[in-house]
């Protein structure tokens, strides 16, 4: 599961740090291990101008958040939603979902993580924060990424 791409993102995370100004911020915790992330989103109209974040967590959660910034910054909220849905589908697919590299780019490296259910939450932590931060910025993100039954973190 520890693809080279994941370890690279873990060691050299993209977009790390909390930046001002921002339109929405979310704090998420994984209740089983205490890992946490604070993530901010800055929007320009429908476009995601910046994602900044800070937190503590394992290689998977850190790398997944780093990949997230690559996948959503500069895209519209609608595009980001589709990417998120694809990533969530991949992670919940138990290794049976074939990832689309055109959509997920470096995110395809997480295909192996999907075989380890206990780590899926790690990979999704940043995405939950992203979804919530966009919501808090006043834009409702549909999609299957964080329905009630999959809510995994705490918001404060």
């Amino acid at each position, binding site marked *: 599961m520890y693809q080279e791409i994941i370890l690279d993102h873990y060691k050299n995370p993209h977009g790390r740090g909390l930046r001002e100004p921002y339109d929405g911020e979310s704090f998420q*915790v994984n*209740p089983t291990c205490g890992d946490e992330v604070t993530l901010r989103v800055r929007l320009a109209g429908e476009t995601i101008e910046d994602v900044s974040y800070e937190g503590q967590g394992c290689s998977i959660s850190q790398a997944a958040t780093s990949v997230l910034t690559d996948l959503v910054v500069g895209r519209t909220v609608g595009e980001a939603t589709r990417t998120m849905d694809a990533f969530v589908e991949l992670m919940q697919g138990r290794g049976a979902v074939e990832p689309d590299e055109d959509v997920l780019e470096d995110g395809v490296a997480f295909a192996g993580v999907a075989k*380890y*259910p*206990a780590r899926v939450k790690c990979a999704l932590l940043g995405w939950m924060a992203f979804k919530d931060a966009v919501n808090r910025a006043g834009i409702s993100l549909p999609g299957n990424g964080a329905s*009630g*039954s999959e*809510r995994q*973190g*705490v918001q404060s």
Partner: protein
Amino acid sequence: MTAVRSDTAPLDVAALRADFPILSRTVRDGKPLVYLDSGATSQRPRQVLDAERRFLETSNAAVHRGAHQLAEEATDAYENARAAIAEFVGAIPGELVFTKNATEGINLVAYALSNSATAGPEMARFTLSAGDEVVVTEMEHHANLVPWQQLCQRTGATLRWFGVTDEGRLDLSNLDELVTERTKVVAFTHQSNVLGTVNPVRTLVERANRVGALTVLDACQSVPHAPVNLPALGVDFAVFSGHKMLGPSGVGVLYGRRELLEAMPPFLTGGSMIELVRMEGSTFAPPPQRFEAGVPMTSQAVGLGAAVDYLTAVGMDRIAAHEHTLTEAALAGLGAIPGVRVIGPTDLADRGGAVSFVVDGVHPHDVGQVLDGLGVAVRVGHHCAWPLHRRLGVPASVRASFYLYNDLSDVDVLVSGVREAQRFFGVAS
């Protein structure tokens, strides 16, 4: 997955019995066991025993707490069982909470309601206080009565109840006077564990909905014996027990409408049900985890999953039809004995397979003892429905209850055993 039989072809009882090791034992000096006490607890087929053992010998670990392979496998087994059981009653997995038995499930709801008083302003909708009412029935098992008495004691609310007719049906004549704007909860049994009576869920739910009361269905005696779709019944909550449906003891199920489970405060608290814990205070996980504190009855949930697979493979329609036949025979056989009086409906409409009776001049304990001496296991006493017995004017009764592994010969042994008890105590006519 096992193939599902939805036809109503008669059960091959001999073949089924071969799955239940205990049924081949003898009791009291070599008498074949005639087990007519499934209403208290059912027996378990090899398939359930094997599933639990297989789990324990290969995948046992603490669920939802570990990242190693055993923990993953155990969590999958536990959640797959939840999914199978949910499907069995027409629900989604997130609506099913594992409890230790049905009794805990009812207490969970009752305590969540009283806890809401101190759980923050958004819980106000669940709060009961003086002037509010909880409505039950006079035919409830103690499990669906005492927790509501206690809830009333904790909150100052008042307990009211539906009466029972001489025929053993719910007396709904005062439905609109009993269930009113003051009513916060209507709790009732789907099928009486004493009388076999099946209650009109729809009528009660409609009235409760009209006044905005929560409904709690005791499905302990219905889910094991007939196809039951809980969401279709429209109840807010329902409970049933694993041990009454071929599954392990130590596991029960609370079904709750998702929206309610999500809004309710927790009951038991501790590990695995939290979201964030600080010394100063804690927040809680979404359901069903919110209501499953501590290491759960893991292998028992897996066993119950295997039990519903077994029941589904046999076919719940066929099981219901089979019990119908046995009940009909028992009512006819017992009804034909002078001095024997069945308590509960004698017509078969809306009636399940529990047959309770009294024998003039012979105390139920003594009837039970004579039957036990003949190898027949029945229940004697008030069957945890003391107020119902008081209402029907008998201190106790004898209850025979049937399941898929019983057949007509068991009914014959029962009926001749009751005659034997009459002879022994000199009251045969």
